[in-house]
């Protein structure tokens, strides 16, 4: 029996072989993965890479409902042509990825993995599929540059039939609703008008120009930041809460007062 044969027959040899084989496979795999990833740092920050990264994110997080090619399925609509603005709106408000199918996806905190960079990447991928509205620039949504008076008129003519005069939201049919506008950022308000998420119609640039959209944003943000001059605002939903307060506070207080007054009897002396 040679020394080599003795090693081969050593009780630990089979384990040594197994470990070597595993290490080899691992190294080959790593080499392949390294090769398939573009090493170029300039490319990594470029557009092309966003699209590619967005595509892989899309396949992991979105494709189960929207389809591998964003063509739409029975549970989610097609995303071809909705544009990066739609992706930015839906994901930055936490509506997408949706937690469960229902009449409407509610606004919620963003999922843990969602970062502005990932939203941008998925947006770039969706934008590459068929164009659509782009995410607006900072200046395009700056409330300070808008005309609140003009914006208010447009807001009343186009928005309040669903969102209420103070953006407090309202009910729509079959469990759908127009959400409260208090948490929406100027960018999100712009994107919502440009893309028409969920039950909302699209207000494109020929219906309402970008300048008009900016004025509406100016009105919405001015009114929601305003301190109610008349005291507690009661949710700014109008006569319903006012009537409740009138009965529950006003009439209750007066009934208690009447009980108190009549409980005071003249003492018999």
């Amino acid at each position: 029996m040679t020394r080599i044969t003795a090693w081969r027959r050593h009780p630990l040899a089979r384990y040594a072989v197994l470990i070597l084989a595993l290490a080899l496979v691992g190294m080959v795999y790593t080499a392949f993965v390294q090769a398939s990833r573009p090493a170029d740092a300039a490319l990594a920050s470029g557009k092309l890479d966003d699209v590619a990264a967005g595509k892989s994110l899309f396949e992991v997080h979105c494709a189960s409902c929207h389809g591998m090619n964003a063509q739409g399925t029975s549970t989610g609509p097609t995303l071809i042509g909705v544009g990066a603005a739609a992706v930015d709106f839906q994901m930055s408000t936490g509506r997408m990825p949706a937690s469960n199918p229902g009449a409407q996806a509610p606004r919620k905190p963003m999922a843990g993995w969602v970062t502005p960079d990932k939203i941008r990447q998925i947006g770039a991928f969706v934008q590459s599929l068929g164009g659509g509205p782009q995410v607006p620039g900072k200046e395009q949504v700056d409330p300070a540059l808008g005309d609140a008076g003009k914006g208010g008129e447009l807001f009343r003519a186009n928005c309040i039939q669903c969102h209420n005069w103070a953006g407090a939201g309202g009910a729509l049919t079959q469990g759908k609703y127009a959400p409260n506008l208090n948490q929406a950022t100027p960018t999100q308000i712009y994107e919502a008008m440009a893309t028409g998420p969920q039950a909302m119609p699209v207000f494109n640039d020929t219906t309402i120009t970008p300048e008009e959209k900016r004025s509406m944003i100016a009105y919405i943000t001015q009114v929601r930041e305003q301190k109610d001059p008349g005291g507690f605002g009661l949710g700014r939903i109008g006569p319903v809460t006012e009537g409740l307060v009138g009965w529950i506070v006003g009439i209750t207080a007066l009934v208690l007062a009447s009980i108190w007054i009549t409980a005071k009897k003249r003492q018999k002396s």
Partner: protein
Amino acid sequence: MSSDLTSVPKGIAGPSNFLDERIGGANFLKRNLRKIFPDHWSFLLGEIALYAFILLLLTGTFLTFWFKPSMGEIAYNGSYAPLKGVMMSEAYASSLEISFDVRGGLLVRQMHHWAALLFVAGMMVHMLRVFFTGAYRKPRELNWLIGVLLLTLALVEGLTGYSLPDDLLSGAGLRITEGVAISLPLVGTYITFFLFGGEYPGEDIISRFYSLHILLIPGLILALVSAHLVLMWVQKHTQMPGKGRTNKNVVGAPFYPAFMAKAGAYTLFTFAVVAGLATFTQINPIWLFGPYTPADISAGSQPDWYMGFLEGSLRLMPSWEINLFGTSHAGTLPLSVIIPALVPLGLVMTGLALYPFLERWITGDHREHHVADRPRNNPHRTSIGMSAIVFYGVLWLLGANDELSANFQISLNWTTYAGRVLVFVLPALAYIITYRVCLGLQRSDSAVVSHGVESGVIKRLPHGEFIEIHTPPADDIEAHVRGKEAVPMLPVEADGAGIPPKGMRGPLGKLRARMSRAYGGEKIALDEGHGHGHGHEDEHAAIGSGEDRSLTH
């Protein structure tokens, strides 16, 4: 010293003597200052409406100093920034001016609005008190009718006032008013053109509503309130049953000083509640609504609460309409507007107005009543009242179905479907439940009168049985309970030959007799030991013997 106290100081004696010799006031005051008023907390509820009305007159006068009832278009140039440069009516601009540029204007505007809400609410709780205690019975039917008229006028007054600021919300209300007017068959279009002075909205409606709101309707309300109070004064207030209280006397405190002090305090309470609400809670923020244009409408558009039941009936109504001869050219009968606008209001108001007369027709009770009923002692009346409250309440609640849907995540459609069923089912349920509750309370009264009150003392009898000793009820409580009177009934029994009495023979007469038999009569007799007939005096109701369960009442 004592002469100092009994003699009248010259400063008072002089002028009062002067007045007395000319208008003879002393005799009048002597008679009326000692007028006795019975004491019960629920008798003060109507005063909420009275004092709120006084406050409405005061704050309303203040508002007229700045309000401009004009629909002329101007560009806003006041201090509310988000409306700068917006075209609006002068009415709306002057309402904004009152809110932002007149010192104390916003507070007074809010007080006016809160007082209006409490005015109608006070009238309603007062009306419910009068209804449930049967205080509308002879001789007070006319005062009851005045009350129903006052309530109707208050609703119209509220509607016109709601429309005056000409903001987007008030415009929505005005549009519904127009829709109701135009839906009337044949005369609808004429009435609408007459009311608005041409096509909706025209340029006249604000100034017309202004005249109605500040002149005609308040004048009528003031006159009717005076008549209401004078009648109450002359007929004397009803009293709750109790010790020494009969149909012939009034037990209570004299107007001066006791009742006057209480009423004065209650005035201040009412003012304080209105002022407190107006200070801390915002109402009708017209600057958020924006100016009215017929093209705009907002989610959450609602009327003030007292119109909510009409809003609800409009929302529940299926979209029925009849096109005459199958074409809209020949004329359309929009049932989806006429029915909800007129039927619930008609049911409630007509029902209220007719109730005293219907009750008298059914019970044949033509006596005078000055002692109020406890609600349990007329179970059918109480059940009818609760049923009406629930009917009104369902409509009222569903007038806000969009807010229910938006804030409680219920499908809007389902609130409507559910409402269409509940508006019929719940009143029926309320009737049955209330009737049973009334009978239960009567049984408990009967137990108190015939068995006494549980003393908490358990006694063991020689043969081993345990009993709880009952003590007789306190005098005042027993007198209060014994104030019960059987609900009168018509003589409906047929004579020996099986022929019903006169007036109960036709179909209507038979209905009347059946209703009288159901409505009237003693359901649970007070003194019969609530159906046991044991004849115990002080000690009864053995625990554990299982044969007398009166302790569980």
